[in-house]
Protein backbone atom coordinates (compact mmCIF):
# COMPACT_ATOMS: atom_id res chain seq x y z
CA UNK A 1 0.00 0.00 0.00
CA UNK A 2 1.60 3.30 -1.02
CA UNK A 3 1.72 5.92 1.66
CA UNK A 4 2.16 9.57 0.75
CA UNK A 5 4.10 11.82 3.08
CA UNK A 6 2.21 14.84 4.31
CA UNK A 7 2.13 17.71 1.85
CA UNK A 8 4.27 20.15 3.83
CA UNK A 9 7.31 17.89 3.65
CA UNK A 10 6.80 16.19 0.33
CA UNK A 11 10.15 17.14 -1.22
CA UNK A 12 12.66 15.87 1.39
CA UNK A 13 13.70 12.21 1.77
CA UNK A 14 12.05 10.41 4.70
CA UNK A 15 13.68 10.23 8.12
CA UNK A 16 12.50 6.66 8.35
CA UNK A 17 11.29 4.21 5.76
CA UNK A 18 10.19 0.61 6.09
CA UNK A 19 9.53 -1.25 2.84
CA UNK A 20 7.96 -4.69 2.94
CA UNK A 21 9.27 -5.27 6.43
CA UNK A 22 8.35 -8.48 8.23
CA UNK A 23 9.41 -9.67 11.63
CA UNK A 24 9.26 -13.23 12.89
CA UNK A 25 10.71 -13.90 16.32
CA UNK A 26 12.93 -16.84 17.23
CA UNK A 27 10.02 -18.65 18.84
CA UNK A 28 8.21 -18.58 15.49
CA UNK A 29 5.61 -15.90 16.24
CA UNK A 30 5.11 -13.51 13.37
CA UNK A 31 4.74 -9.97 14.68
CA UNK A 32 4.68 -8.05 11.40
CA UNK A 33 4.06 -8.82 7.73
CA UNK A 34 4.73 -6.55 4.76
CA UNK A 35 4.94 -3.23 6.54
CA UNK A 36 5.36 -0.18 4.30
CA UNK A 37 5.74 3.00 6.24
CA UNK A 38 7.62 6.25 6.07
CA UNK A 39 8.03 9.26 8.28
CA UNK A 40 9.09 12.49 6.57
CA UNK A 41 11.23 15.04 8.40
CA UNK A 42 8.96 17.21 10.51
CA UNK A 43 6.04 14.84 10.14
CA UNK A 44 4.25 13.22 13.07
CA UNK A 45 2.82 9.80 12.27
CA UNK A 46 0.84 7.77 14.77
CA UNK A 47 0.24 4.07 14.84
CA UNK A 48 -2.99 2.99 16.47
CA UNK A 49 -4.06 -0.54 17.04
CA UNK A 50 -5.05 -3.02 19.72
CA UNK A 51 -2.47 -4.49 22.10
CA UNK A 52 -0.34 -7.17 20.49
CA UNK A 53 -0.83 -5.93 16.91
CA UNK A 54 2.89 -5.26 16.45
CA UNK A 55 3.06 -1.51 17.12
CA UNK A 56 5.92 -1.73 19.59
CA UNK A 57 7.81 -4.10 17.29
CA UNK A 58 7.71 -1.45 14.54
CA UNK A 59 9.07 1.11 16.98
CA UNK A 60 11.86 -1.18 18.15
CA UNK A 61 12.79 -1.85 14.52
CA UNK A 62 12.83 1.88 13.82
CA UNK A 63 15.10 2.41 16.83
CA UNK A 64 17.50 -0.27 15.65
CA UNK A 65 16.84 -2.37 18.76
CA UNK A 66 15.55 -5.17 16.51
CA UNK A 67 16.47 -6.25 13.01
CA UNK A 68 13.80 -7.05 10.42
CA UNK A 69 13.44 -10.66 9.25
CA UNK A 70 12.61 -9.49 5.72
CA UNK A 71 12.22 -6.25 3.84
CA UNK A 72 14.15 -3.01 3.98
CA UNK A 73 14.62 -0.61 6.81
CA UNK A 74 16.14 2.79 6.09
CA UNK A 75 16.93 5.21 8.88
CA UNK A 76 18.30 8.43 7.46
CA UNK A 77 17.85 10.42 10.67
CA UNK A 78 21.20 11.27 12.26
CA UNK A 79 19.84 11.28 15.78
CA UNK A 80 16.97 9.16 16.98
CA UNK A 81 15.36 9.51 20.41
CA UNK A 82 13.06 7.11 22.14
CA UNK A 83 10.39 7.83 24.72
CA UNK A 84 9.42 4.69 26.57
CA UNK A 85 6.06 3.64 28.00
CA UNK A 86 7.54 4.11 31.44
CA UNK A 87 9.48 7.37 31.99
CA UNK A 88 12.60 5.21 32.60
CA UNK A 89 14.34 7.86 34.67
CA UNK A 90 17.43 7.02 36.67
CA UNK A 91 16.13 7.31 40.24
CA UNK A 92 19.42 8.49 41.70
CA UNK A 93 19.71 11.46 39.37
CA UNK A 94 17.85 14.75 39.61
CA UNK A 95 15.54 15.77 36.78
CA UNK A 96 18.30 17.94 35.35
CA UNK A 97 20.92 15.21 35.49
CA UNK A 98 18.49 12.75 33.90
CA UNK A 99 18.10 15.11 30.98
CA UNK A 100 21.88 15.57 30.86
CA UNK A 101 22.49 11.83 30.66
CA UNK A 102 22.35 11.54 26.88
CA UNK A 103 24.87 14.36 26.49
CA UNK A 104 27.10 12.73 29.08
CA UNK A 105 27.09 9.46 27.18
CA UNK A 106 28.01 11.33 24.01
CA UNK A 107 30.77 13.30 25.73
CA UNK A 108 29.14 16.70 25.25
CA UNK A 109 31.06 19.26 27.38
CA UNK A 110 29.48 19.79 30.78
CA UNK A 111 28.60 23.49 30.41
CA UNK A 112 27.01 22.96 27.06
CA UNK A 113 24.92 19.96 28.01
CA UNK A 114 23.77 21.60 31.26
CA UNK A 115 22.66 24.79 29.52
CA UNK A 116 20.83 22.78 26.89
CA UNK A 117 19.17 20.54 29.51
CA UNK A 118 17.93 23.56 31.45
CA UNK A 119 16.55 25.04 28.28
CA UNK A 120 14.59 21.88 27.42
CA UNK A 121 13.36 21.44 31.01
CA UNK A 122 12.04 24.95 30.76
CA UNK A 123 10.32 24.09 27.48
CA UNK A 124 8.47 21.19 29.15
CA UNK A 125 7.48 23.44 32.05
CA UNK A 126 9.82 21.94 34.65
CA UNK A 127 12.35 24.74 35.17
CA UNK A 128 11.52 24.78 38.89
CA UNK A 129 11.82 21.03 39.33
CA UNK A 130 15.32 20.65 37.88
CA UNK A 131 16.90 19.79 41.24
CA UNK A 132 14.27 17.25 42.26
CA UNK A 133 14.68 13.48 42.13
CA UNK A 134 12.17 11.32 40.23
CA UNK A 135 10.55 10.13 43.47
CA UNK A 136 9.65 13.70 44.28
CA UNK A 137 7.85 14.17 40.96
CA UNK A 138 4.33 13.20 39.90
CA UNK A 139 3.75 10.71 37.07
CA UNK A 140 3.05 13.51 34.61
CA UNK A 141 6.16 15.42 35.64
CA UNK A 142 8.29 12.31 35.27
CA UNK A 143 6.98 11.86 31.73
CA UNK A 144 7.82 15.49 31.02
CA UNK A 145 11.41 14.82 32.12
CA UNK A 146 11.44 11.78 29.86
CA UNK A 147 10.27 13.89 26.91
CA UNK A 148 12.87 16.53 27.74
CA UNK A 149 15.57 13.85 27.76
CA UNK A 150 14.45 12.71 24.31
CA UNK A 151 14.39 16.23 22.87
CA UNK A 152 17.65 17.44 24.40
CA UNK A 153 19.60 15.48 21.81
CA UNK A 154 17.84 17.51 19.07
CA UNK A 155 16.68 14.38 17.28
CA UNK A 156 15.68 14.23 13.64
CA UNK A 157 13.39 11.36 14.53
CA UNK A 158 11.61 10.82 17.83
CA UNK A 159 9.94 7.51 18.64
CA UNK A 160 7.19 7.38 21.25
CA UNK A 161 6.04 4.06 22.68
CA UNK A 162 2.61 4.82 24.19
CA UNK A 163 4.14 7.34 26.57
CA UNK A 164 0.88 8.65 28.04
CA UNK A 165 -0.90 5.31 28.43
CA UNK A 166 -0.43 5.10 32.18
CA UNK A 167 -1.37 8.69 33.02
CA UNK A 168 -4.68 10.05 34.25
CA UNK A 169 -6.96 11.77 31.75
CA UNK A 170 -6.19 15.40 32.66
CA UNK A 171 -2.42 14.85 32.75
CA UNK A 172 -2.70 13.01 29.49
CA UNK A 173 -4.51 15.87 27.77
CA UNK A 174 -1.99 18.38 29.14
CA UNK A 175 0.92 16.34 27.87
CA UNK A 176 -0.70 15.93 24.47
CA UNK A 177 -1.02 19.70 24.26
CA UNK A 178 2.60 20.13 25.38
CA UNK A 179 3.93 17.58 22.90
CA UNK A 180 1.87 19.03 20.07
CA UNK A 181 3.28 22.44 20.92
CA UNK A 182 6.89 21.18 21.12
CA UNK A 183 6.37 19.41 17.84
CA UNK A 184 5.02 22.54 16.18
CA UNK A 185 8.11 24.46 17.35
CA UNK A 186 10.65 21.72 16.70
CA UNK A 187 11.86 20.20 13.49
CA UNK A 188 11.78 16.51 14.25
CA UNK A 189 9.88 13.74 12.58
CA UNK A 190 8.04 11.45 14.97
CA UNK A 191 6.49 8.03 15.09
CA UNK A 192 4.03 7.83 17.95
CA UNK A 193 2.31 4.72 19.24
CA UNK A 194 -0.96 4.91 21.09
CA UNK A 195 -4.18 3.04 21.50
CA UNK A 196 -6.14 6.24 22.02
CA UNK A 197 -7.86 7.37 18.82
CA UNK A 198 -8.34 10.96 19.95
CA UNK A 199 -4.69 11.21 20.97
CA UNK A 200 -3.66 9.95 17.55
CA UNK A 201 -5.90 12.37 15.67
CA UNK A 202 -4.99 15.37 17.81
CA UNK A 203 -1.23 14.83 17.54
CA UNK A 204 -0.55 13.53 14.10
CA UNK A 205 -0.38 14.43 10.44
CA UNK A 206 -1.23 10.85 9.53
CA UNK A 207 -2.78 8.03 11.47
CA UNK A 208 -1.87 4.48 10.49
CA UNK A 209 -4.39 1.92 11.65
CA UNK A 210 -2.91 -1.46 12.52
CA UNK A 211 -4.38 -4.87 13.05
CA UNK A 212 -2.86 -8.35 13.20
CA UNK A 213 0.67 -7.37 12.23
CA UNK A 214 -0.33 -5.27 9.20
CA UNK A 215 -1.06 -1.66 8.45
CA UNK A 216 -4.71 -1.80 7.46
CA UNK A 217 -5.51 1.81 6.66
CA UNK A 218 -4.25 5.36 6.64
CA UNK A 219 -6.08 8.53 7.60
CA UNK A 220 -4.57 11.91 6.77
CA UNK A 221 -5.27 14.57 9.39
CA UNK A 222 -5.46 17.82 7.48
CA UNK A 223 -4.90 20.51 10.14
CA UNK A 224 -1.72 22.56 10.57
CA UNK A 225 0.27 22.57 13.80
CA UNK A 226 0.01 24.12 16.35
CA UNK A 227 -3.46 22.88 17.12
CA UNK A 228 -5.48 24.51 19.87
CA UNK A 229 -6.47 22.04 22.62
CA UNK A 230 -10.16 22.86 22.30
CA UNK A 231 -10.14 21.60 18.72
CA UNK A 232 -10.59 18.12 20.19
CA UNK A 233 -14.23 19.01 20.78
CA UNK A 234 -14.96 20.35 17.28
CA UNK A 235 -17.29 18.53 14.89
CA UNK A 236 -14.55 18.00 12.25
CA UNK A 237 -12.26 16.46 14.85
CA UNK A 238 -14.96 14.10 16.04
CA UNK A 239 -15.70 13.13 12.44
CA UNK A 240 -12.04 12.20 11.75
CA UNK A 241 -11.81 10.35 15.05
CA UNK A 242 -14.99 8.48 14.18
CA UNK A 243 -13.48 7.39 10.87
CA UNK A 244 -10.31 6.14 12.56
CA UNK A 245 -12.38 4.25 15.14
CA UNK A 246 -14.42 2.56 12.40
CA UNK A 247 -11.25 1.53 10.54
CA UNK A 248 -9.74 0.26 13.76
CA UNK A 249 -12.76 -1.91 14.39
CA UNK A 250 -12.57 -3.29 10.85
CA UNK A 251 -8.86 -4.04 11.16
CA UNK A 252 -8.86 -5.93 14.44
Amino acid at each position, binding site marked *: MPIEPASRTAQTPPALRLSGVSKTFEDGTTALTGIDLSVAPGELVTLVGPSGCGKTTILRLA*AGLLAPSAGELEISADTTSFVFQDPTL*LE*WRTALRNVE*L*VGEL*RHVPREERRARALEVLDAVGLADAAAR*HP*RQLSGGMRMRVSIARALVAQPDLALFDEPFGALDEITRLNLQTLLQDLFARGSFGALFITHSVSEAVYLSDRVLVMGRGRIAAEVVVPWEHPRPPEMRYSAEFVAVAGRVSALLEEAS
Partner: protein
Amino acid sequence: MTGPTASRTLPGWLTQAISVVAALLGIGLVWTFVSLVVLSPERRFLLPPPTQVLTTLGNPTIMTPMLAALGRTALVALVGLAIAVVVGLVWAVLMAQSRWVERILYPYAVILQTIPILALTPLIGIWFGYGIPARVVVAVIIAVFPMISNAFFGLTSAPTAASHDLFTLSRASRWQRLVKLQAPAAVPSVFTGLRTAAGLSVIGAIVGDFFFQQGAVGIGGLLRVYTLRLTMEALLTAVGLTALFGVLVFSVFAALDRFVVGRWYGR
Protein backbone atom coordinates in the same frame (compact mmCIF):
# COMPACT_ATOMS: atom_id res chain seq x y z
CA MET B 1 6.99 -0.17 64.33
CA THR B 2 4.45 1.18 66.75
CA GLY B 3 0.74 0.49 66.53
CA PRO B 4 -1.77 3.22 65.79
CA THR B 5 -2.93 3.57 69.41
CA ALA B 6 0.61 3.74 70.78
CA SER B 7 1.71 6.34 68.25
CA ARG B 8 -1.24 8.53 69.15
CA THR B 9 -0.23 8.67 72.82
CA LEU B 10 3.58 8.25 72.94
CA PRO B 11 6.40 9.13 70.57
CA GLY B 12 7.80 6.13 68.68
CA TRP B 13 11.26 6.09 70.21
CA LEU B 14 9.79 6.13 73.74
CA THR B 15 7.54 3.13 73.10
CA GLN B 16 10.55 1.39 71.57
CA ALA B 17 12.72 2.22 74.60
CA ILE B 18 10.03 1.06 77.00
CA SER B 19 9.62 -2.26 75.20
CA VAL B 20 13.39 -2.84 75.20
CA VAL B 21 13.65 -2.10 78.93
CA ALA B 22 10.60 -4.26 79.64
CA ALA B 23 12.11 -7.16 77.70
CA LEU B 24 15.43 -6.80 79.57
CA LEU B 25 13.62 -6.71 82.91
CA GLY B 26 11.65 -9.82 81.92
CA ILE B 27 14.81 -11.71 80.98
CA GLY B 28 16.45 -10.56 84.22
CA LEU B 29 13.49 -11.81 86.28
CA VAL B 30 13.41 -15.23 84.62
CA TRP B 31 17.18 -15.48 84.95
CA THR B 32 17.08 -14.58 88.65
CA PHE B 33 14.26 -17.05 89.20
CA VAL B 34 16.14 -19.90 87.49
CA SER B 35 19.35 -19.06 89.32
CA LEU B 36 17.98 -18.64 92.84
CA VAL B 37 14.90 -20.87 92.84
CA VAL B 38 15.32 -23.59 90.22
CA LEU B 39 19.00 -24.31 90.74
CA SER B 40 20.20 -25.72 94.05
CA PRO B 41 23.09 -23.77 95.67
CA GLU B 42 25.68 -26.36 94.63
CA ARG B 43 24.57 -26.12 90.98
CA ARG B 44 24.11 -22.34 91.03
CA PHE B 45 27.53 -21.83 89.39
CA LEU B 46 25.91 -22.96 86.10
CA LEU B 47 23.89 -19.77 86.03
CA PRO B 48 24.94 -17.17 88.58
CA PRO B 49 22.27 -14.51 89.26
CA PRO B 50 22.43 -11.33 87.11
CA THR B 51 23.59 -9.16 90.01
CA GLN B 52 26.66 -11.35 90.44
CA VAL B 53 27.39 -11.25 86.69
CA LEU B 54 26.98 -7.49 86.60
CA THR B 55 29.60 -7.06 89.34
CA THR B 56 32.25 -8.28 86.88
CA LEU B 57 31.63 -5.05 84.95
CA GLY B 58 33.20 -3.21 87.88
CA ASN B 59 36.13 -5.59 88.18
CA PRO B 60 39.11 -4.20 86.24
CA THR B 61 41.17 -7.42 86.42
CA ILE B 62 38.45 -9.08 84.31
CA MET B 63 37.22 -6.13 82.30
CA THR B 64 40.53 -4.63 81.13
CA PRO B 65 41.71 -7.75 79.28
CA MET B 66 38.17 -8.45 78.08
CA LEU B 67 37.76 -5.04 76.48
CA ALA B 68 41.24 -5.22 74.96
CA ALA B 69 40.35 -8.62 73.47
CA LEU B 70 37.06 -7.25 72.16
CA GLY B 71 38.97 -4.38 70.55
CA ARG B 72 41.31 -6.81 68.81
CA THR B 73 38.37 -8.85 67.56
CA ALA B 74 36.67 -5.69 66.34
CA LEU B 75 39.80 -4.80 64.40
CA VAL B 76 39.98 -8.26 62.86
CA ALA B 77 36.29 -7.98 61.93
CA LEU B 78 36.79 -4.55 60.40
CA VAL B 79 39.80 -5.58 58.34
CA GLY B 80 37.98 -8.74 57.30
CA LEU B 81 34.93 -6.71 56.31
CA ALA B 82 37.01 -4.26 54.28
CA ILE B 83 38.65 -7.12 52.38
CA ALA B 84 35.29 -8.86 51.92
CA VAL B 85 33.78 -5.66 50.50
CA VAL B 86 36.58 -5.20 47.97
CA VAL B 87 36.71 -8.88 47.00
CA GLY B 88 32.91 -9.12 46.87
CA LEU B 89 32.49 -6.05 44.67
CA VAL B 90 35.23 -7.08 42.24
CA TRP B 91 33.81 -10.61 42.12
CA ALA B 92 30.29 -9.28 41.42
CA VAL B 93 31.46 -6.83 38.74
CA LEU B 94 33.37 -9.61 36.99
CA MET B 95 30.36 -11.94 37.11
CA ALA B 96 28.12 -9.17 35.76
CA GLN B 97 30.29 -8.85 32.64
CA SER B 98 29.07 -11.99 30.93
CA ARG B 99 27.11 -15.17 31.46
CA TRP B 100 30.28 -17.03 30.76
CA VAL B 101 32.25 -15.42 33.61
CA GLU B 102 29.21 -15.81 35.85
CA ARG B 103 29.09 -19.55 35.19
CA ILE B 104 32.76 -19.87 36.08
CA LEU B 105 32.78 -17.75 39.23
CA TYR B 106 29.38 -18.29 40.81
CA PRO B 107 29.96 -21.90 41.91
CA TYR B 108 33.00 -20.83 43.93
CA ALA B 109 30.99 -18.16 45.71
CA VAL B 110 28.41 -20.80 46.60
CA ILE B 111 31.10 -23.23 47.78
CA LEU B 112 32.58 -20.53 50.03
CA GLN B 113 29.15 -20.01 51.50
CA THR B 114 28.16 -23.65 51.97
CA ILE B 115 31.39 -25.31 53.11
CA PRO B 116 31.50 -25.42 56.94
CA ILE B 117 34.28 -23.16 58.20
CA LEU B 118 35.32 -26.05 60.46
CA ALA B 119 36.37 -27.97 57.36
CA LEU B 120 38.52 -25.10 56.17
CA THR B 121 40.30 -24.26 59.43
CA PRO B 122 43.08 -26.83 59.03
CA LEU B 123 43.90 -25.46 55.57
CA ILE B 124 43.70 -21.88 56.73
CA GLY B 125 46.04 -22.70 59.62
CA ILE B 126 48.56 -24.38 57.34
CA TRP B 127 48.48 -21.55 54.78
CA PHE B 128 48.13 -18.47 56.96
CA GLY B 129 49.53 -19.59 60.31
CA TYR B 130 47.58 -19.80 63.54
CA GLY B 131 47.51 -16.13 64.46
CA ILE B 132 45.73 -12.95 63.49
CA PRO B 133 45.99 -13.25 59.66
CA ALA B 134 44.13 -16.58 59.84
CA ARG B 135 41.38 -14.92 61.91
CA VAL B 136 41.01 -12.24 59.26
CA VAL B 137 40.74 -14.93 56.59
CA VAL B 138 37.90 -16.59 58.49
CA ALA B 139 36.10 -13.25 58.81
CA VAL B 140 36.50 -12.65 55.06
CA ILE B 141 35.22 -16.09 54.10
CA ILE B 142 32.14 -15.73 56.28
CA ALA B 143 31.37 -12.14 55.25
CA VAL B 144 32.09 -12.20 51.53
CA PHE B 145 29.08 -14.11 50.20
CA PRO B 146 26.37 -11.55 50.97
CA MET B 147 28.57 -8.89 49.37
CA ILE B 148 28.96 -10.95 46.21
CA SER B 149 25.35 -11.99 45.92
CA ASN B 150 23.79 -8.63 46.78
CA ALA B 151 26.14 -6.64 44.56
CA PHE B 152 25.66 -9.08 41.70
CA PHE B 153 21.91 -8.96 42.09
CA GLY B 154 22.00 -5.17 42.11
CA LEU B 155 24.23 -4.91 39.04
CA THR B 156 22.21 -7.33 36.97
CA SER B 157 18.61 -7.02 38.18
CA ALA B 158 18.20 -3.45 39.39
CA PRO B 159 18.39 -1.65 36.00
CA THR B 160 15.20 -2.13 34.00
CA ALA B 161 15.20 -3.49 30.45
CA ALA B 162 14.05 -0.08 29.22
CA SER B 163 16.94 1.71 30.91
CA HIS B 164 19.31 -0.75 29.23
CA ASP B 165 17.60 0.09 25.92
CA LEU B 166 18.12 3.77 26.67
CA PHE B 167 21.86 3.16 27.04
CA THR B 168 21.94 0.98 23.93
CA LEU B 169 20.20 3.70 21.91
CA SER B 170 22.75 6.25 23.13
CA ARG B 171 25.50 3.89 22.00
CA ALA B 172 26.90 3.72 25.52
CA SER B 173 30.11 1.74 26.00
CA ARG B 174 30.25 -1.21 28.37
CA TRP B 175 32.16 0.97 30.81
CA GLN B 176 29.56 3.77 30.65
CA ARG B 177 26.81 1.21 31.19
CA LEU B 178 28.62 -0.17 34.25
CA VAL B 179 29.49 3.21 35.77
CA LYS B 180 26.38 5.22 34.93
CA LEU B 181 23.67 2.57 35.05
CA GLN B 182 24.51 -0.72 36.72
CA ALA B 183 26.71 0.48 39.57
CA PRO B 184 24.44 3.33 40.70
CA ALA B 185 21.37 1.12 40.38
CA ALA B 186 23.13 -1.45 42.57
CA VAL B 187 23.85 0.95 45.44
CA PRO B 188 20.83 -0.04 47.59
CA SER B 189 21.57 -3.77 47.21
CA VAL B 190 25.25 -3.21 47.92
CA PHE B 191 24.36 -1.48 51.18
CA THR B 192 22.00 -4.29 52.13
CA GLY B 193 24.88 -6.68 51.49
CA LEU B 194 27.23 -4.51 53.51
CA ARG B 195 24.87 -4.54 56.49
CA THR B 196 24.68 -8.33 56.46
CA ALA B 197 28.40 -8.71 55.81
CA ALA B 198 29.24 -6.40 58.72
CA GLY B 199 27.32 -8.59 61.17
CA LEU B 200 28.86 -11.73 59.70
CA SER B 201 32.39 -10.34 59.85
CA VAL B 202 32.02 -10.03 63.64
CA ILE B 203 30.89 -13.64 63.85
CA GLY B 204 33.77 -14.62 61.57
CA ALA B 205 36.31 -12.78 63.72
CA ILE B 206 35.05 -14.48 66.88
CA VAL B 207 35.10 -17.90 65.21
CA GLY B 208 38.62 -17.07 64.01
CA ASP B 209 39.66 -16.13 67.58
CA PHE B 210 38.33 -19.42 68.76
CA PHE B 211 40.34 -21.54 66.32
CA PHE B 212 43.50 -19.49 65.92
CA GLN B 213 44.90 -18.64 69.30
CA GLN B 214 48.46 -17.63 68.50
CA GLY B 215 49.26 -13.98 69.11
CA ALA B 216 47.21 -11.51 71.13
CA VAL B 217 43.98 -13.03 72.38
CA GLY B 218 40.61 -11.96 70.96
CA ILE B 219 37.21 -12.15 72.60
CA GLY B 220 36.58 -15.57 71.02
CA GLY B 221 39.82 -16.82 72.61
CA LEU B 222 38.70 -15.49 75.98
CA LEU B 223 35.34 -17.24 75.62
CA ARG B 224 37.26 -20.46 75.28
CA VAL B 225 39.46 -19.68 78.30
CA TYR B 226 36.45 -18.79 80.47
CA THR B 227 34.69 -21.96 79.39
CA LEU B 228 37.67 -24.14 80.26
CA ARG B 229 38.00 -22.48 83.65
CA LEU B 230 34.24 -22.47 84.22
CA THR B 231 34.35 -18.79 85.23
CA MET B 232 30.67 -18.36 84.47
CA GLU B 233 30.34 -14.69 85.47
CA ALA B 234 33.11 -13.67 83.08
CA LEU B 235 31.81 -16.01 80.37
CA LEU B 236 28.31 -14.56 80.57
CA THR B 237 29.67 -11.01 80.57
CA ALA B 238 31.78 -11.77 77.52
CA VAL B 239 28.79 -13.31 75.71
CA GLY B 240 26.70 -10.25 76.58
CA LEU B 241 29.42 -7.87 75.40
CA THR B 242 29.85 -9.80 72.17
CA ALA B 243 26.11 -9.68 71.50
CA LEU B 244 26.05 -5.97 72.27
CA PHE B 245 28.96 -5.40 69.93
CA GLY B 246 27.20 -7.36 67.16
CA VAL B 247 24.05 -5.28 67.62
CA LEU B 248 26.13 -2.09 67.58
CA VAL B 249 27.88 -3.02 64.32
CA PHE B 250 24.60 -4.01 62.71
CA SER B 251 22.91 -0.78 63.83
CA VAL B 252 25.75 1.39 62.58
CA PHE B 253 25.61 -0.23 59.16
CA ALA B 254 21.81 -0.18 59.08
CA ALA B 255 21.91 3.56 59.83
CA LEU B 256 24.58 4.04 57.17
CA ASP B 257 22.39 2.10 54.74
CA ARG B 258 19.34 4.28 55.47
CA PHE B 259 21.36 7.47 55.28
CA VAL B 260 23.20 6.74 52.05
CA VAL B 261 20.33 5.08 50.20
CA GLY B 262 17.94 7.80 51.36
CA ARG B 263 20.22 10.52 50.02
CA TRP B 264 20.80 8.50 46.89
CA TYR B 265 17.14 8.89 45.97
CA GLY B 266 16.97 12.49 47.12
CA ARG B 267 14.82 11.91 50.20
